[in-house]
Every structure is written in C-alpha cells, then in structure tokens.
C-alpha cells in the first residue's frame, strides 16, 4: 500500500528525481574510470564529467580521495576546467575542512561542496558554512554503518573511524545547522553492488525534511528504483554501474521512467 501510494505520488511529482554519477579522483586522475569506447583518456576527470553531462546526468559529483592538503590545487584545477564545459550542477567533496577550502572550490566553479569528517568533528562548521555561502551549496556527507537492527552509526575517514554517533540523530542535527542536502552512504553496502541499504535511507528521509541523496551499493537499475521509491531519496548517486559502461545515464532514466518514477528525460 505504501509503495502504491508512493507510485501515485511519483507520477504526480513534477520535481524530478536526480541521477548523479560520482567520479572518484585521486591525485588528479579518475580512479574508477568509465569504460566507454569514445574516451580518449580514461583517467581524465574533465573528459568523463563532460560525457556524463552530455549524456543527461542531472548533476556531477567529484570525490577527491587524495584528501591531503598538498594536493588541493589539483582538484581545484579539475573543477575549474570542468565548470567551463559542464553546465549542470557540480558537487565536490573530499577533505573539505575549512571556509577557505569551500571558497576556493566555489570560486573554481563548484556549485556545492560536500562536507564529511569536518562536520562530524564540529557541527558549528556546517552552521558557519551555510550562513556564509547559503544552504544551497552545503551538502553534508554521512557515512553510516549498521550496528543493530534499525540502528546506524556515523563513521568518518572513509569508513575507518567509528564515532559512536547515531546516524539518524546526526542527520537531524545537520539539517538544524543549515545543511541543504544530505549525501547518505551505507558503509555496509558501498562497493558490494547488492543494492542500497533501503532501511537506512528510509530512516533518514523519515526523520529529516531536506533532500537526501542515496549512495552505496548500486549494482542494477532496480536498485536506483528502490532508493527513490522505497527509501524516499530525492536523488540517487552511483559510481561503478556507470563507470564500467554497463549502463548509460539514459538507460537509468528510461528504466525509471518506465516504472513511473519521474526523471528528466
């Protein structure tokens, strides 16, 4: 019944559910590259972002997994070049820990920044950043792991560090402190290709009133459907199903559309 209601709701909703491909960048190169034949250089993030944007991606996300201060100029240069060619929103995350980091990324052409560890360490940073730059460009990335039935805990440093913080409580807190969106990754599911942790997504979307981007575990197009319809996510982020050329953004959108999920075609 709930699913049926959601389906009717989806049909009515004019605001489209977003499909966001995510590119992991290390030392200026894409780590999990796209396997498309038309690529000249499989490691070039700018070229890959352009392919996604031309292919109908609703937003592009870069995750800088170098995340060391010495290499910040590299990601900034990539953002600058990408922003000159892609005219859809661009989100950049990884190692964002100061107002200066955000300023640099926004000036280079990012539209949003995603804050992870720094938000957990100090929630006031989220408040300060959203006051200064506006909620519209502050995304808080929450990495969560299941600890008990219906209980998830926040992890930092790419899932290595346990914090003891309840993920649902933390999500409410980031909303109160001005985050415009939550990028929610299940550490249990990330990289497994076995589907999103739908219960986690639902727990967060039920308890917050800002858009949630679901991440971690997508292996099939049906998983995208689950994230939106069963989890209530406003956007779905995926990496490997697009990178390895199994599916194009267009395939994902056509599939979702065929199942009455509203997308931008």
């Amino acid at each position: 019944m709930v699913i049926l209601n959601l389906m009717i709701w989806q049909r009515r909703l004019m605001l489209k559910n977003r499909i966001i491909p995510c590119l992991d960048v290390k030392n200026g190169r894409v780590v999990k590259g796209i396997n498309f034949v038309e690529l000249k250089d499989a490691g070039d993030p700018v070229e890959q972002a352009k392919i996604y944007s031309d292919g109908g991606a609703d937003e592009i996300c870069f995750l800088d997994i170098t995340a060391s201060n010495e290499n910040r100029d590299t990601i900034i240069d990539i953002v600058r070049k990408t922003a000159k060619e892609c005219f859809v929103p661009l989100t950049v995350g990884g190692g964002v820990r100061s107002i200066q980091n955000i300023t640099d990324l926004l000036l280079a052409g990012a539209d949003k920044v995603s804050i992870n560890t720094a938000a957990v360490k100090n929630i006031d940073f989220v408040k300060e950043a959203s006051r200064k730059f506006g909620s519209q460009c502050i995304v808080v990335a929450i990495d969560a792991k299941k600890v008990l039935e219906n209980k998830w805990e926040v992890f930092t440093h790419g899932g290595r560090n346990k914090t003891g913080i309840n993920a649902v409580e933390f999500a409410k807190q980031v909303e109160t402190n001005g985050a415009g969106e939550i990028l929610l990754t299940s550490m249990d599911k990330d990289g497994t290709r076995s589907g999103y942790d739908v219960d986690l997504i639902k727990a967060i979307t039920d308890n917050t009133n800002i858009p949630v981007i679901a991440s971690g575990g997508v292996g099939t197009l049906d998983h995208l459907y689950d994230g939106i319809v069963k989890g209530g996510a406003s956007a779905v982020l995926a990496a490997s199903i697009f990178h390895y050329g199994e599916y194009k953004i267009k395939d994902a959108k056509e599939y979702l559309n065929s199942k009455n999920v509203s997308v931008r075609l």
Partner: protein
Amino acid sequence: MKVTIVDYQSGNISSVINSFTEVAKGKVNLEVTSNVNKIKSSDKIVLPGQGSFKSCVDSLNNINGLIDTLKEFAITKKKPLLGICVGLQMFADVGYEEVETEGLGWISGKVTKIDNQNGKFKLPHIGWNEIEIQKESKIFKDIKNKSHMYFVHSYEFVPDDRSVILATTDYSTKIVCSVEKENLFGTQFHPEKSDKTGLKIIENFIKL
C-alpha cells in the same frame, strides 16, 4: 555590445560567469564588476543572487552608489536587466527571509517561504523541475513548454500583478519561476545550471 554581470560579493557567481562566457564567446563583451561607471556604460545587466534575501540586499547596499546606479539603468533608462534567483526576488517590495527586509521595489510583490504543506514537500526545492510557460517572451524563444530547469530555493516571489508572470513551476503550489515587466526579466531557476536549455535562455537575453 557590453553585458555586465554585477559582482556584489554575495555568493558564488562562478557558474553564471562560466555560462555567459560560453554563450558570449567572442560575440559580446562580457564584464564582471561592481564598478558603477562600468555598469552605467553597459547595454545589459545580469543580477545574480545567492544566499538569503537579506544578505543579498545588504551586499548591494554595501557598495556605494550601486543601488542608485542599478535603478537608473533599469527604471529610468529602461535597459534590459536579468535577475537570477535572489537577483529576481530582490525586484520585490519586501522579503521575509530571516527578517522582513525591503527589496528594490521594481515589481510590486513580496518574497515568502514556499508552503511545504507541513513537511509534505522538502525544502529547499532542489533539482530539475518543469516550467509551464504562461505567456510568450523573447527570453523563451525556442524554449519548449515543460522544459526542465534547475532550481535551488526555499522562498518564492509573489507578484501583486499576475500579468508579469512568464512561467510557473509546480512544487506544492504553482510557484512563479519567471517574470517580465518591460525591460526587467527574472528567473527563479538557474539558467546557468540548466544545461543546453538554460544556455539558450542566456543566449536569448544576450540577443534581445
């Protein structure tokens, strides 16, 4: 022709600069400035806006003579001006984000929070939504009805005179997402982030 993007130190305007640069490519002289003399000598002005209504109005006020210069350009000389997002919202008499704040008063009306029907609709209204074109406009030349545009906002402009409305979008209610009054144009959505369709609107404005 000289098109000026007003840089009044409020929010991130890189994307506006990038998209106008892409469209202008060698055809138009594009300036990004808050210098009032340069604004005076422009043919067209783009007024972007990010952050809250109050912070944008405050930032305009912080630059000596800027509001008067914009007013002379848009109201006295009636030269084309495009407001984007909060840039459009500031056309209103008053805004209610944070605290009640006086706007530019160029198109009478107010800026209020989107009615999210007690949490039924998430705010901010973020993402791609369809626009419903209400009347013809030069800035919508070759833009199909129900095209998708990219939105990020929690507040909406409610004009007193409904005849200024060019387009609406459906999110909780019919939100006004584009207006035109004589030489004044505004979009609540971000043409600079709305892919090829958005770039077309920018081109239409430049070609006015």
